């Protein structure tokens, strides 16, 4: 478990502490596995398991950017894979930007997929 103060990275996702979640974003419901902050084609998602509704997850118009509001003391981002597992990150209370990694393509760029 690693605690993030300002900027933390878990695989292809960055978590950046911000002052507040911007306006115009859309709140996303949690899935069975929790809030999927990093989707994996193979099911090895990066998730925040929030059973008591203390975490709010938002999508923006930019697929690379999402946001989190952690209303409780902290939220843990867990990588759902039992091997080559990215260590859990602990995010403190407040607003966070989720920034997903991209890669170059002949057409421009695409989000890194795993």
């Amino acid at each position, binding site marked *: 478990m690693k605690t993030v103060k300002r900027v933390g990275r878990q695989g*292809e996702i960055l978590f950046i502490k911000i002052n507040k979640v911007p306006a115009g974003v859309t709140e996303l419901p949690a899935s069975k596995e929790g809030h999927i902050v990093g989707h994996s084609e193979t*099911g090895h998602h990066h998730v925040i398991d929030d059973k008591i509704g203390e975490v709010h997850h938002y999508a923006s118009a930019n697929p690379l950017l999402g946001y989190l509001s952690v209303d409780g003391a902290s939220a843990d981002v867990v990588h759902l894979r039992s091997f080559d597992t990215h260590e*859990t990150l602990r995010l403190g209370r407040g607003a966070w930007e989720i*920034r997903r990694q991209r*890669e170059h393509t002949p057409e421009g760029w695409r989000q*890194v997929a795993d």
Partner: protein
Amino acid sequence: MKIKKLTDQQIARMPEFRDRWLKIGLSTDPTDRPRAEAAIAAMYRAAGTAPPRKIVWCGSPLSQGLTRAVILDKRMWASVRASVGASVRASVGASVWASVGASVWASVGASVRASAGASVWASIWASVGDSVGDSVRASVWASVRASVGDSVGDSVGDSVQASVGDSAYGQHDAGWLAFYEFFRETCALNEQTEKLSGLTELAKSAGWALPHSGICWVSERHSLLVRNAGGRLHSLVGPAVRYPDGWKIYAVNGTRVPGEWIETPGFLTAKVALTHANIEQRRAGCEILGWAKVLTEINAVTVDADRDPEIGTLLRADLPDAPGSQFLKVHCPTGRDFCIPVPADCKRAREAWNWTWARDEAAKLPEVSA
């Protein structure tokens, strides 16, 4: 009376259950059809449901999902209706997974929890259930589950993918079944675990099952399973998983890869590996070829190397139809190396790394990385 502590004799039997269920979960033995069909009837009865009138055997979880989709998917049904006959579809009732599977697991879980203290539950789970589950569920089942959906086109993908969620996983349920069988056999929790007897017998005799009212599709076990020393699916010379109907899954150190990479000599080149869309598969491709060979084959030259290996090394190479391609070779905190395509005009590794995050060079670097 609630079990608060395990005896030394009970603890000593944990490896026996772990080994027994690992063997069941990873079995490639032919299916025992009579035993499996009796198990299916018991599963239905445990849920208070009449056993199915028809049991349909399938060669793999994929053909099981496809066979159901032929009947239930409106588009597929339209194309086979004339030759199959409406009575077939009429005889297929709704999925009964919720009662045959989900509610049984929930009910048994609650009964056993009520009979065993939290520390007993945790220690048996850690020593028996979790260790079996990690080898069977996390390694084999997860790959089979993901491959079922990936093996079919978009037109029937949703129908077939839905079959995964509606299935009992037979031998791949080994982790939880080992856990409850330990309670049953060593702690005398017979009544509390009785409802699982059908699912337990299914696991000992067959693969996945897809229970519906009136009909149950059931799959053969895998006939081949190849794993590396760490227990992950792995074969560089053929499929890592094969089912009796010929369905195969290819994997390298736990990462599923296209079959051509393994089966077709010369198919996997440095270019194919480096330009593959999925970054985990791209890494696996480079590992199959060997990083040194990949970089030699494309005549990669180092443009810039950051002192932080997680920022990486900026490489430039003239690929056959993409001269001047650039890649950032980065070291991941999980200990593996990845290649990320970056724009040709990047001049420094840190510039390329920041580009991948759509951030400018003044942006703060992560203080923690995992």
